[in-house]
């Protein structure tokens, strides 16, 4: 039994089976009070089912869900103090903004004066004080978003669930809403559980992120941990951009491996993941583009630096994207490797067909045995 007060939400070995399909498989986690927690995973990984169980729309096949220390397994959805922002928001179109926000308060039997005060207060807090009498159809996408959150927050929930609510917005608005959601979470000081398949949303906003795949939690950690210290190959491949080489281990030595890749390269990397590879095992090596430096080879031969992997190649194309520009380099085996570059717009910039040397630290070559 945990000490109850410090966690807003605890899931204890929660599973959900649909027939023979294990949609959610033995998931356990705790969310501390007032934090922003994201569940990140590809479509169909079970994250929506997990959230519907927390909200009470699905009954877990086994396991326990506790909110503020009390089990809610037998509590119907309308009695749980967990509110949810739906994917398409599910604002009530036949009610105006005021009525939408007042709905929950009415259900709880609040008096007219209390309702009016609370609705106006929450509209102030989401900085939309003048929209109370608007119809839902008259709101912009971002405003609808905020109303949907206000409709939940006015009820002082213990936990707010958000089911990919930014999915329907256009890119620009989504970027703005990311920051806004984070600010709203700080302002309301409520635990947010955010479900998404968009890693940048999860990384930017969250205090903690759980990576989910195939119904299981693969890793839980801060965004930095997930990005820099992935515990499993799935996390390394799923979070952020990465280059991947598959190969066979040719040498193992105190946490370092030498990998002979399928394309004929020899790379050194550090071992990650739960299983330590032996010589002859198949491993995947992951390297993020920002750790790879691309330099023109300019005649001189690459010298093997102790802490570096180096390979030669030819620039295939430039992926210009302002500060996030990349080059695609083709090595001798014909593999394409992504590397971050700084493009300043002058003569020094890399151009297609340039011969380059790619180098990156061995410590950033993360090798996993699957």
């Amino acid at each position, binding site marked *: 039994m945990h000490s109850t007060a410090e966690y807003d939400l605890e899931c204890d070995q929660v599973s959900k089976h649909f027939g023979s399909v294990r949609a959610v498989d033995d998931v356990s986690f705790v969310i501390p009070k007032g934090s922003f927690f994201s569940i990140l995973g590809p479509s169909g990984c079970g994250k929506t089912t997990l959230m519907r169980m927390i*909200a009470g729309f699905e009954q877990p096949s086994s396991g326990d869900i506790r909110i503020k220390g009390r089990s809610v397994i037998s509590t119907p959805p309308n*009695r749980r103090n967990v*509110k949810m922002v739906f994917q398409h928001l*599910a604002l009530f*179109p036949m009610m105006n903004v005021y009525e939408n926000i007042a709905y929950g308060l009415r*259900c709880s039997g609040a008096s007219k004066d209390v309702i009016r005060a609370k609705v106006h207060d929450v509209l102030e807090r989401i900085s939309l004080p003048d929209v109370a009498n608007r119809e839902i159809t008259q709101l912009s996408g971002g405003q609808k978003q905020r109303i949907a959150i206000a409709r939940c927050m006015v009820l002082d929930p213990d936990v707010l669930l958000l089911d990919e609510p930014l999915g329907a917005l256009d890119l620009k608005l989504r970027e703005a809403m990311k920051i806004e959601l984070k600010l709203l979470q700080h302002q309301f000081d409520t635990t947010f559980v955010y479900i998404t398949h968009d890693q940048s949303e999860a990384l930017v906003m969250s205090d903690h992120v759980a990576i989910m795949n195939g119904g299981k939690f693969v890793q839980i950690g801060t965004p930095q941990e997930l990005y820099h210290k992935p515990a499993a190959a799935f996390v390394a491949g799923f979070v952020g951009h990465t280059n991947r080489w598959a190969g066979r281990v040719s040498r193992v030595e105190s946490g370092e491996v030498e990998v002979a890749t399928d394309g004929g390269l020899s790379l050194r990397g550090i071992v990650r993941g739960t299983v330590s590879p032996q010589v002859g095992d198949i491993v995947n090596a992951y390297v993020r583009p920002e750790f790879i430096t691309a330099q023109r080879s300019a005649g001189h031969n690459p010298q093997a630096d102790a802490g570096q992997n180096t390979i030669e190649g030819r620039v295939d194309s430039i992926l210009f994207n302002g500060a996030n520009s990349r080059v695609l380099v083709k090595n001798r085996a014909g593999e394409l490797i992504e590397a971050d570059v700084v493009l300043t717009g002058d003569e020094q910039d890399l151009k297609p067909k340039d011969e380059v040397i790619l180098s990156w630290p061995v410590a950033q070559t993360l090798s996993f045995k699957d």
Partner: protein
Amino acid sequence: MQKDIKRLSFLLLFAPFALWITLLIILPHLGMLHISLREKVAPRVYEFGFGNYLNFFNEPIYWNTLLRTGSMSLLVTLLALILGFPIAYYIAKIAGRRARGALFLMCLIPLWVSDLIRAFGWILLMRETGVISNTLQWAGVINAPIEFLYNDATVIMGLVYTTILFMIVPLVSTLDGMDDAMIEAGYNLGGNGPTVLRRIIIPYAMPGIVSGCIVVFMLTAGSYLTPILLGGKNSSWFTEQIYDQFITRYNWEAGAAFGFVLLAFTSLVIWGGLKLTGQTLNTTVARS
């Protein structure tokens, strides 16, 4: 050129509708209006006047029949709504994708048989020597045959049976357009079953409800066959009065006037219903 083709295709598409509405709706009604506004003063001598309408209001049997028809039609509409809503809700929201088509089809199948045949079916079941009476006697529940026909309850039942489909169809189409998340949001924000039904599902389905009610009320108030066959002489349905004037008494003037009174009455009821629910014809019938 392009514009001419567009115009031509529009005219061709519009022509059948225009012909139908002028030849079968507007012209006959103008003729009827003309007939209803002339009084017979001598054989083949007519005068313009409102005598036929005055006649209607001066004879209590006439407007009593109309009020009775109107109130019973409202009752039928209400019953069709109460019975049809759960069915429509089940088809639109609870049944699976595949079951939905089959259920819809099952609602439609009775329409393949003509009104008349279905009414005779009811007669076979409910007359004094019919299936129900005989079965009850055989089971020993009653010891003498009972006549189930020719009373108001049977008429109402028959009318609900014939019109309920027209309630279900618009309801299914509006409820189908409702996102399930909206119902879940209703629960999630603290509403219990009745609250969600009253505050979310019914307001959302209102256009469908009103449009179904309009159609059912119109069909019921204007129906002739079912009240006559199941209600017999006691049914006192207003359409029967109109039939009497035209066919039995050969008094076309009075019949035409009654027809217009019925039209005005049903229009008034529907207008009142729309005002009461805050809907317009645009948001209801035109949408579903």
